[in-house]
């Protein structure tokens, strides 16, 4: 092979290699023609801190709008003098900026359905659609700032009344007061959709009896040491045990990032365990920060009893028999737990909490 042939070979090889990388690979819009069904979230709560409600949506086709922009939530003001906010102030002649959060809601909200829950005495409870509930957002300025020419002194608190969009069906009469071990039936009638019905039997209300650590009853839990909790035995049922260290205003707590301890993986217990059988909780091990002083925090242990539907939906879950890492969302064949005629679930919970201190 002479030099010219060699050059031609290299050139030809390069052209082929270059063109090997080209090809059509465009995005295509997907269509589907799927008969829509109602998508239901129905919760009957015996927990005084948690009301019962029903969320109602529809399935959507792949070419339909699934989420729409509904507004902006003001989260707070970031001052350019603050190190943590400095990144947004680069190359701009501003004193600071408002942190906003875009609000979206499902496009397939069903707002005009008839939702009725009936107890086993035949009493009907209407659940009406509520779009907003009002709440007051508190913004506290700990430095003096100027916003659009207006000076706001430090130590000023602004009370911002906001409408929180909930888009849920809640008890319009205010008389729905679910009882333990009671059967409730759900009936949803929405124009253009098949009737959806559901049924559940509420769980017993759990009661935490005590917590012991190192062999003695404890009002204050020491981190990195296992502890036992005891509850009053009930006739059957499952419950989820969780624990949380409370920080109050977490974003305002400079030591929050350094905290560890007290956390454990939630686990399920059988409430019918005879006697006061303890469950030993082994908190996550963490190292103590030698530079931090000993401090205590509020600590909540919660035990949440679940009815069969809630347990089936949130604990057993759906055994995913199809997975694809290239899909930008998870997949489901569509679950119906406690309901018929649609997807979703109708379930019930009842909770008890134990408020303690946790120390390190």
């Amino acid at each position, binding site marked *: 092979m002479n030099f010219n042939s060699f050059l031609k070979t290299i050139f030809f090889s390069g052209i082929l290699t270059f063109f090997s990388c080209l090809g059509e690979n465009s995005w295509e819009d*997907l269509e*589907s023609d799927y008969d829509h069904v109602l998508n239901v979230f129905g919760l009957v709560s015996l927990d005084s801190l948690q009301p019962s409600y029903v969320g109602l949506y529809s399935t959507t086709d792949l*070419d339909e*709008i699934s989420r729409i922009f509904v507004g902006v939530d003001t989260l707070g003001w970031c001052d350019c003098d603050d190190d943590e906010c400095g990144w947004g102030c680069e190359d701009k002649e501003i004193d600071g900026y408002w942190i906003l959060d875009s609000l979206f809601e499902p496009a397939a909200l069903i707002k005009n359905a008839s939702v009725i829950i009936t107890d086993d005495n035949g009493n009907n409870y209407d659940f009406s659609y509520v779009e907003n509930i009002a709440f007051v957002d508190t913004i506290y300025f700990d430095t003096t700032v100027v916003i659009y020419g207006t000076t706001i002194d430090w130590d000023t608190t602004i009370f911002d009344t906001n409408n929180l969009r909930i888009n849920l069906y809640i008890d319009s009469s205010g008389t729905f007061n679910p009882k333990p071990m009671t059967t409730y039936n759900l009936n949803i009638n929405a124009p253009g959709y098949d009737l959806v019905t559901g049924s559940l039997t509420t769980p017993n209300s759990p009661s935490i009896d005590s917590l012991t650590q190192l062999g003695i009853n404890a009002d204050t839990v020491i981190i990195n040491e296992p502890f036992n909790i005891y509850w009053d035995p009930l006739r059957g049922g499952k419950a*989820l045990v969780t624990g949380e260290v*409370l920080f109050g205003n977490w974003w305002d707590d400079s030591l929050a990032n350094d905290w560890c301890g007290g956390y454990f993986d939630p686990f399920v217990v059988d409430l019918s365990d005879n006697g006061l059988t303890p469950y030993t909780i082994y908190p996550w091990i963490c190292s103590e920060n030698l530079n931090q002083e000993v401090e205590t925090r509020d600590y909540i242990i919660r035990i949440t009893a679940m009815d069969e539907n809630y347990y089936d939906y949130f604990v057993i*879950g759906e055994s995913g028999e199809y997975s694809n890492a290239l899909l930008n969302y998870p997949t*489901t064949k569509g679950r119906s737990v406690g309901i018929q005629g649609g997807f979703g679930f109708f379930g019930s919970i009842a909770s008890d909490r134990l408020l303690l201190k946790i120390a390190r």
Partner: protein
Amino acid sequence: MHYLIFFIFGFLFSQSMTASINGFVRDDASGEPISYANVFLSNSSIGAATNSDGYFVISEIPFGFYELNATMIGYAVFKKKVDLSLGESIRLEIRLKEEVIKGTEVLVTAERQKFERSMESSQIALDLREINSAPAFVEPDVFRTLQMLPGVQTTSDFSSALYVRGSTPDQNLIMLDGIAVYNPYHLGGIFSTFNTDAIKEADFHAGGFPARYGGRMGAILNVINREGNTEKITGSANLSLISSKALIEGPLPKWKGMKGSWMISGRRTYIDKVVDALALPSGSKNSDGSDIPLRFPYYFYDYQIKANLDIDQDHRLTFTRFYGDDVLDFSYEDPSETVSNENVTIQQDSKFGLDWPWGNQTNGLTWRWIVSPKMITKTFLSNSRYRFDFDLFFQNRDLYTYSDSTVINFINFNWNIYDIIKDRTLETEVQYKYSNDHEITGGFQIKKIRFDLGIQYDLETQDTSFTWNPLSLNNNTQEISFFLQDRWEVSKRLKIRSGLRLTDYNLHKKIYADPRIGMKYHISDDIALKANWGLYHQFLTTANNQDENLRLVELWLGIPKEKPASVSEHVIGGIEYMSPRNIFYRIELYQKTFENLLTLKQDNANEYEGTSQDSTMNEFWDTRGNSNGIELLVKKSSGKFNGWIGYTFSETKYYTEPSGWHNPNFDRTHTINIVGNYDLTSDLELSAALTQSSGNPYTKILGRVYDWEQSLYNDSYWYPIDSYLVGAKNTERYDDYFRIDIGMTRKGGNLFGLEYDTYWQIMNLTRHINILSYRYRTKTDPLTGNQLGVQRQPIPMFPLIFTFGVKFEF
């Protein structure tokens, strides 16, 4: 009693009235044994074919004077006159000389020998020429060549794994010189671990294999390496775009009558070395400001050694060793940062990296003893180890220096996933040619396998350390098998092979029986009917995601105690025709059923209950299935133009509880393969391959729905998870697959006295987009952020790829 004595004496007398000839047929230049060579006596129907060791035996020859012939394609006919006396047994060493084919005599007898000799259905023996001449990805690969045969499918261009008649790759027994190899792949499955330069032949059974093989339900592939040149030291080197290969072989020094040969071959990718040599800057700097050079983090290598020692004419020892690894290894170190104030100086160092070797190692020692001309025994001791050891680490160290003290805080985190299989096997096989009508093979096998599959987290700080094993599965399994089979030539037209394999699996309290029977009936000299039936048990499985289109590694497990052994039943029937022009035609129908398969459960959502023993790696769905199909093959093995056309129609269905009956993701209904090679001139060879097949199945998304997640701490809240609603499993198919590859080999180059060949290939000549999968995104309105709809984009397999390489011989 008298009749018995009379019968014994009569039998012995009749044996002494006959003679036998046995021996080996080898290549004269290299000494390599030649399989399927035809050895026969002129003007008679007495003859035999050589086995994979090149050994033949012709028995029950009436005494007299004969001319012995030995023929094989590509070699001159060997002739020798022999004079056989009563009861005489002659051992011959026949050497065949290579010769360009001039007449058709050799063509007819060599290919016809395979046609007449082969009893098993669905068997194909590929020689090195066929493996090397088929177009392949970058360099020849035996698995890629097999994928072009009917009945063998693949899931993508990126995988050389074999899906055979509804069986997944873990159901195939892949052997190198008889030693099982687990995960025989490099580069995540793109290449097999078998270096074709070292291969002599590959014996492939797509199904219906005899009782001497066991422990698998699908197919058998036995890759046989070359033995080494017994005459002189020779070698070759090969450079392709991906790897460099070398092979050297030669005779062992003769000593006290013992002789032998050896062969060493090796292969390694070189891109990492090229990048190292270029010393390109990576963009990062060391703490002293110097550049950190760019490193290519991946390479693979393998080497094979084979040595044969003929102690005498009856005893041979063979040692084989294979070692291969893929290594993905990179680390990144943040330059040390130091901050200080009047009270303290803090120095921070951090490093993270990945060290991930995976590969195979095999060692085998075989003792072959020719007990008598009619009896050969082989005893075989081997070990095979596959290990996969994924190690991700992170290290962080903070050094606090005060005026009067120093404090070190550090955290070292290590995440390790490992899968180690150790297989030790002792096997003995006896082949006894009882008569010209009966060839009996029997033996036993003891196989001990240890599986270790686990996940481990190690965390160490300055004042604590712990190790967590969320998954630790290990079992020790043992299979003890006995087998006996008889190849019975009932008449000139009818041959029956029957056999039974019994296996004791230590985790189950039962003996598994695998009866197998095959039949071949010659309707005429050119047409034969074949039928096979058999049961095939398997005692191991893999824990891989059934939906993955790219399978980088396979995670092996022994069948647990509480699960029954997997079993498959094969029923195969076919008709074969060898034309006068030496073209082979075959139509074959098959039906396979599968019971007690295990499919890994995916995304087990029960995160609140269970211990590490309930982790997803050992949760399985009981699965059953079936596969049916028709295969057509037309194959021309000799002449200036050779190749084959294959067509497969197949349907495979698996059943699991959540999915019901469905097609697995490797099921392709129609497949056409056309492979052709043409010797344009004596030093220019052209090749081409075409594949057209149905697309692989996938699950369609139908719409969108909400699923909910919970958070139950002090506050309660539930939040919706956007999810795709999917239809029935695998009811949609990607677009049809189509690809044309062409290649050219130019021989006869000479560089500084070294002979070399160059080869060029173009893969996917027409640049057809074959879809591996789709990726999805949500179309969003840039002004409002509204989610408008879903889009998808195909992820293609191979684009047009141009490769070339050069091979030297010395």
